[in-house]
């Protein structure tokens, strides 16, 4: 029971940090799930995150994997509700307030200020992920190739991600 409460608390808290995208919560996600509670190891967390890039829908649905690894199906359910419900209610409420806020003189300031911080948080998440994932020249080359491919073309991002996995497998078997 204590474990479910901890899962709910951690993921409810993490959901509040996802301004601008799920990646913004990644540094704190790593801190809490790996170092504080030892629910997953850092490589496991990175693997789930990467698999989450392949799954359809919002990419942070990978939090369900952590819940499932800790406490099976009920764990996954608790984590999902904690991660989605509070911010969902907040969005719902603000969405209804939006028209009244439309002429608030501070609104553009708030939007731009939060925008910069959100980009900064995504960058921090990327740095934390890169520290774990880019453990050698081979992985750096893969990341750069995926970056170049995606910034120059409009292909579905899942394709280069699956291709990197295939290249990793190829190197493992034939390299």
């Amino acid at each position, binding site marked *: 029971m204590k474990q479910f409460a901890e899962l709910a608390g951690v993921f409810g808290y993490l959901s*509040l*940090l*996802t*301004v*601008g995208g799920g*990646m913004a*919560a990644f540094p704190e996600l790593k801190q809490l799930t790996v170092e504080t509670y030892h629910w997953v190891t850092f490589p*496991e967390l*990175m*693997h789930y*995150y*990467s*698999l989450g*890039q*392949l*799954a359809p*829908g*919002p*990419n942070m*649905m990978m939090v*369900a*994997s952590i*819940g499932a*690894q800790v406490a099976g199906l009920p764990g*996954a359910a608790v984590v999902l509700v904690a991660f*989605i419900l509070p*911010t*969902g209610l*907040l*969005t719902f409420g*603000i*969405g209804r307030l939006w028209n009244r806020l439309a002429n608030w003189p*501070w609104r*553009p300031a708030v939007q*731009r*200020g*939060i*925008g910069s*911080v959100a*980009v*900064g948080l995504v*960058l*921090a*998440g*990327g740095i934390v992920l890169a520290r774990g*994932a880019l453990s050698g020249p*081979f*992985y750096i080359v*893969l*990341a*750069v190739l995926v*970056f170049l491919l995606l910034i120059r073309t409009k292909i579905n*991002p899942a394709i280069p*991600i699956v*291709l*990197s*996995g295939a290249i*990793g*497998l190829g190197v*493992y078997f034939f390299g």
Partner: protein
Amino acid sequence: MSKRTANSAAPLPLAPPPSLWRLFVAFFIMGGTSLGGGVIAYLRTGLVMRYRWLDDEHFVELMAISQSLPGLNATNMSILAGDRLRGWPGALVAGLGMCLPGASLMTAAAFAYGIGGDDPASKAFLRAIAAGAVGLISVVLVQLGAKMLTEFADYIFVALTAGLVAFLHVPVPYAMIGVGALAIWWHRPRKAGPGKAAEAPGKEPAP
């Protein structure tokens, strides 16, 4: 965001709001087919182009709210669009439909990982896709930055936030509130002068 494509020509009338069941099915399908992130693009194709439940103007407005609030953008978008179309029950079924497919798959992935996660071949696969994911997040970062950062000071706020969190290990809420307050103050509304900061942030489409 809006590109100079054909969709500005002769706007079609909006379709009537769907039933709750149809709404759920539509979001479930979008949630289940939007592979590899970038769900917003799939949502626009579905809501604006295919079903004609929202026009582009509304869509962009809802997107702006979704991105400035905590919560996953795609989930927030679904909740707001569902509310527009069918009130709170609509928000509920749209959010559920969007999240269910990915959440079920990732739950299943955890069990599959428990079985195969220690296999060296699957480790090689997963490590390589983690590297690919770094490439993907860098692209998202560049695109997000191009859209949100309009002046030099914005880049300072980005660097400050990232530096505090990733290198100095400042807890995210402190960094968010500290740098956020600074950035909001920087962009504060000023009395109508020769009007540089008083107007809305530059929304002109990229050339």
